[in-house]
């Protein structure tokens, strides 16, 4: 059975711990298969109903407004007829009716419209600069289709919509340009492949050109969202040159005060920092870290979540990168987040802490000095399970990298009791990590010659009973780890127990005949 030590596996992902320079960080676990619902606080990949900020008054068509629209629901057949007609007016009416169908809340007939072969018509309408209404309606319809599944997006791209939309970005009509921003955001959100197609087609300069002091806030919101999707997704990451192109504008956006812009800009940063140390470095070098730390205390959940995520990513980087974050005051911001009413925020905060605790003793000392241990122990005791799990990692990192004095301090803060209480948790991996932490604490006690004292303390806290119970755990590795602890620290030092020929009653003493030259 491949019972590789799982603790080691994750430990090797923490920076510094694995001693293997190629995999130094704790990668975000979202790369793995998930059983849970997608994170509710995660940003949307694609959006169907967003508000265009820049519609001219007479066409103020918010989705709410749409339901009372004058345009009647037409059947697909009628739409096909209209769109395929030669009359601009009919085409416009057809597009409008299609867009309306596609905007409906439940089961928009994306596939039917595609199967009807209307996409090439829509794409061709995009370039009709002299028919802005038709252009707009076609863009809207395509946007809605692109917001569907990957297959739907693929249909839009394969009908040549990308260059057409990029050209539309430069449209003098703000609402048309904004519609293009939206459509491109949906296409970029589909995944790395289309994201890179867009980047190849020079979408970035075209987008950035629209950022200027008088760009309306609403427009900037959509544009920031699209930029964030261009930063998003791994395997592969967006090309470094593209990132470098976008970063100055993202930094600029991060200094605005609109919460939606801040949120998406932070998400963008969080995607860019969710990579290896070189990726992180590009972001850290912009000097944005202090602003991100500041945003961790933002009143809006939508802003602080991605800001915290970005900081969490950065502290999983090198010691130097982590130090930048510490210098920016992250340790003053974390305690509040560790007690934030929302459990997912607590979890992210403790995750960040666990990565700082994986650093050198100097950084561990800063955790102590800034008073992070009491909230950590508190989360260990009272956090929800996901937070507790991160806290357990934090403690194990702390105890494996900290000095003896630091480990003693942690125990004095009540961590041992909390660890022992968790030993009945229903998760094999967490159990193993807990046993590792206990083992680390014992190793510190060994250096002080106080293992006996610690054994008694563990027993008093009910730990011995629980570790003994783990000796009957179904998971072989957990059982082994528990067994080793018991044997080493709770047994009573059992003593360990040039080939020689033997006859029945004695060994035959003889040295080999061969004369050989010794050399040591």
């Amino acid at each position, binding site marked *: 059975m491949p019972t590789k030590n799982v603790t080691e596996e994750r430990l090797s992902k923490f920076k510094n711990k694995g001693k293997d320079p190629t995999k130094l960080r704790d990668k975000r676990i979202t790369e793995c298969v998930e059983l849970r619902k997608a994170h509710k606080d995660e940003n949307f990949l694609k959006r169907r109903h967003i508000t265009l900020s820049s519609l001219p008054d007479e066409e103020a068509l918010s989705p709410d407004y749409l339901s009372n629209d004058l345009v009647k629901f037409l059947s697909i057949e009628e739409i096909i007829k209209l769109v395929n007609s030669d009359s601009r007016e009919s085409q416009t009416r057809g597009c409008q009716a299609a867009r309306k169908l596609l905007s409906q809340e439940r089961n928009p007939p994306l596939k039917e419209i595609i199967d009807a072969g209307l996409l090439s018509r829509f794409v061709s309408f995009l370039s009709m600069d002299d028919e802005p209404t038709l252009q707009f309606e076609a863009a809207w319809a395509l946007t809605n289709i692109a917001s569907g599944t990957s297959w739907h997006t693929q249909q839009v791209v394969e009908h040549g919509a990308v260059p057409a939309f990029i050209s539309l970005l430069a449209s003098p009509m703000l609402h048309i340009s904004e519609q293009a921003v939206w459509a491109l955001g949906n296409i970029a959100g589909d995944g790395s492949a289309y994201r890179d197609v867009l980047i190849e087609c020079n979408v970035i300069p075209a987008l950035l050109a629209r950022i200027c002091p008088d760009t309306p806030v609403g427009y900037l919101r959509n544009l920031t969202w699209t930029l964030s999707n261009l930063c998003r997704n791994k395997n592969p990451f967006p090309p470094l040159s593209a990132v470098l192109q976008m970063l100055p504008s993202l930094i600029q956006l991060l200094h605005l005060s609109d919460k939606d812009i801040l949120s998406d800009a932070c998400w963008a940063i969080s995607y860019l920092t969710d990579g290896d140390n070189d990726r992180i470095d590009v972001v850290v070098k912009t000097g944005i870290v202090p602003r991100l730390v500041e945003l961790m205390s933002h009143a809006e959940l939508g802003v602080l979540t991605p800001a915290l995520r970005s900081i969490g990513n950065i502290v999983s980087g090198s010691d130097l990168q982590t130090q930048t974050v510490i210098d920016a005051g992250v340790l003053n911001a974390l305690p509040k987040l560790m007690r934030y009413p929302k459990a997912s925020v607590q979890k992210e905060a403790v995750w960040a802490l666990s990565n700082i605790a994986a650093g050198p003793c100097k950084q561990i000392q800063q955790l102590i000095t800034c008073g992070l241990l009491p909230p950590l122990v508190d989360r260990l005791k009272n956090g929800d399970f996901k937070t507790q799990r991160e806290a357990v990692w934090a403690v194990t990192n702390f105890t494996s990298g900290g000095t003896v004095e630091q480990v003693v301090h942690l125990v004095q803060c009540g961590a041992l009791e909390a660890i022992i209480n968790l030993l009945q948790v*229903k998760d094999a991996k967490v159990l193993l990590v807990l046993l590792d932490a206990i083992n680390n604490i014992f190793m510190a006690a060994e250096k002080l010659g106080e293992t006996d004292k610690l054994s008694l303390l563990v027993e008093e806290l009910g730990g011995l009973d629980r570790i003994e119970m783990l000796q009957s755990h179904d998971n072989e*590795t957990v059982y082994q780890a528990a067994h080793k602890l018991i044997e080493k620290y709770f*047994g*009573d030092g059992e003593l360990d127990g040039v080939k020689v020929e033997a006859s029945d009653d004695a060994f035959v*003493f003889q040295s080999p005949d061969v004369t050989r030259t010794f050399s040591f």
Partner: protein
Amino acid sequence: MELNDANLQTLTEFLRKTLDPDPAVRRPAEKFLESVEGNQNYPLLLLTLLEKSQDNVIRVCAAVTFKNYIKRNWRIVEDEPNKISDPDRTAIKANIVNLMLSSPEQIQKQLSDAISIIGREDFPQKWPDLLTEMVTRFRSGDFHIINGVLRTAHSLFKRYRHEFKSNELWTEIKLVLDTFALPLTELFKATIELCQTHAADVNALKVLFSSLTLISKLFYSLNFQDLPEFFEDNMETWMTNFHGLLTLDNKLLQTDDEEEAGLIELLKSQICDNAALYAQKYDEEFQPYLPRFVTAIWNLLVSTGQEVKYDLLVSNAIQFLASVCERPHYKHLFEDQNTLTSICEKVIVPNMEFRSADEEAFEDNSEEYIRRDLEGSDIDTRRRAACDLVRGLCKFFEGPVTAIFSGYVNSMLSEYAKNPGENWKHKDAAIYLVTSLASKAQTQKHGITQANELVNLTEFFVNHILPDLKSPNVNEFPVLKADAIKYVMIFRSQLPKEQLLEAVPLLLTHLQAESTVEHTYAAHALERLFTMRGPNNTTLITPAEMAPFTEQLLNNLFKALALPGSAENEYIMKAIMRSFSLLQEAIVPYVPTLIGQLTHKLLLVSKNPSKPHFNHYLFESLCLSVRITCKSNPTTVTSFEEALFPVITEILQNDVQEFLPYVFQVMSLLLEIHDNSIPSTYMALFPHLLQPVLWERTGNIPPLVRLLQAYLEKGGAAIATAAADKIPGLLGVFQKLIASKANDHQGFYLLNSIIEHMPPESIIQYRKQIFILLFQRLQSSKTTKFIKSFLVFVNLYCVKYGAIALQEVFDCIQPKMFGMVLEKIVIPEVQKVSGAVEKKICAVGITKILTECPAMMDTEYTKLWIPLLQALIGLFELPEDDSIPDDEHFIDIEDTPGYQTAFSQLAFAGKKEHDPIGDAVGNPKILLAQSLHKLSTACPGRVPSMLSTSLNAEALQFLQGYLQAATVQLV
């Protein structure tokens, strides 16, 4: 093998023979089946038989054989041949589910096991349609089939409960969820509806309830790793129905059996587990449902009876409440005074009551009772669960809970007072309640170390415990007596000394109680009291304080060993050992009698050693009697030998493996007491100790080496004259030991003793061979441990035989060898030597090399002189660490493992550290200074010039310090 009738017939016959009670018939048949199982179609023949045979016995037998065959052969191990042909594999997978479902239960179980074994290897990749095949059966409407599917699913999915998260595992779970979760949910709902439809049909209900239990188990497995999206979306359905089932009671399903849990209990118990899982891991999502579950589970507890069949359910349910009540955000659910009172009154108190099952165990199964009550193997019991709930509640509500219970304790005690004969169980519960309420932290070594300050332990002791201990009839109310003794024992660190002293004589009388539990507890309590430490690191209870009771203590302890059921009672034997250790000289007058009893006991248990702890303490007690008596009068050792040698001889002759390591230690202890001579009785044994078979058992090695060392120390000369022909055998042992990385240090112990104690002329002929062997080992495996031992030995040799002899023997093995060893081993490694004596040996040896070896001054070795001196100064200036405290009494011999014949070291057979140099050299630094002085006068000018040109400044400074201290000067 063809799939034909003839083969089926043959197989049937052999299967029948495997059931034959006569091994002469059975074994060949089993062999035959094993020999043909590699043939293609063999598994299919078995499947055919289990389906179609007319004989039911053969069908079951074929099913069992099939399952074992799958278990042995299905897994494909890398680099090993595939043991089942691919067509067979395909055919098995195509038919087995159907077969399983259409078979009677006995066969179904075997096939279900086989499916899970196959599934573990093949599912999901190599068995993609298994799940869909199972799911389709849900629609069959036949609950025998459905339960078969559920059981199989359970055995396939239950590993999700303990395996580590991995992408591979989660991909599988995701796949299972995609196909299985919805049909399972539909089945769950449908089954519950059917339960209502068939509410009056007991047979239908039985089947339906086993389905529900299986479904609940599947729920647990599928939800274990993380909360799946599907179950989060369908939480309402599941939790509402779980809650409904928890509150459901159907009279028809109640069983009369008192012991075996019924279907309702099993189901509810699993639902408690499910709720506990969600409460622990998915608190955020489960929060809206939790209060309802708390109420339902609490009501369930209030209405559940005392019968054993409810134990698992009750302890699961209480554990659920215990885990919830200590969470800050659920505090409010328990806070109300009425709620607390009600939980205390209706949940905790009833589950602390002494039940008839406990009473039976107390009387008839005392070992089990003691294990549960004293050693904490009571994890799943109601009492333990209730105790955990008390502790959980005390986290937030210590004051109110203590107050509520005080009321209960008082009323239970007054019930008892009214009619002790009738109501003694009330007092038992009261004591248990006080104990669980008062103890906040506990260890085996010290008992309760932290107590609830709101409970007055001393007052309770005086008013309620002492009267029971004092009661003249020790055999009346044995349970209460045991409770009282246990109270003293576990609260020993909390009670004032005067009360403990008051209790001691009372405990002595309880050693005579008929009840095994009671006299065992008395012995255990005494043993624990005797290990308590007072001020100044002495024992809390002094030998002087015990003086008036010494005789009674020893008498009663030994008499207790004669009580029925306690002939090998480890608690009593441990108390004997501890008493000896405490009383010291005071036992001497009694030893002549006691040693007879102990050796008699030893003779008895050596016939069939079965209680390792008892035996260990027996040997410890023997060693203590020897040591204590011989300390003041060493000549008495012969009387011990007279008493012990017959038993020892018998043990050696019968090769009682468990006892040999002990016997060697006892013999060492005895021999070491002798003046410098070796009695002939020992000499007669000497050749036997060199037998290879003894040295093959690792547990024998340390005590045997020690014994041989004792032989050499006391009779090195005698061996050289009377047993010179045994010297090669002795060296053979050394050779055997240094060949092992684990035992090489033991080989050096032996070699050092040989060098130290044997007359030089008796070993001179072997010395070259000895060094060649050591070099050989150094060449092949240079471990730190070996090097450390090697350095000590080389220097000891030098001290004993002189530096010139050392240099000569090295250089005659190979030219320049001496220089190489100094340069490559001694100089770089000597800093690693640890231990005061070992360092001293090295210091003296190196001093001799530096100052008494002409080759060091006149040959090419001269270049090593300064580096060697520098290394020596380094050795001196390393921080001293090692000293072994002479702390005999408190040496912790708690859970000495004696289950294997691994070496069980006897604490009281301990050996004093031996210093072969002893007083000959007081301070090696002074010796170095003096020796250098001597050397410098022999060749004036050379030493100072070497020092001033090459020795580093720091070392020179240290050296000048030594010279000053020795008041000598170099010339």
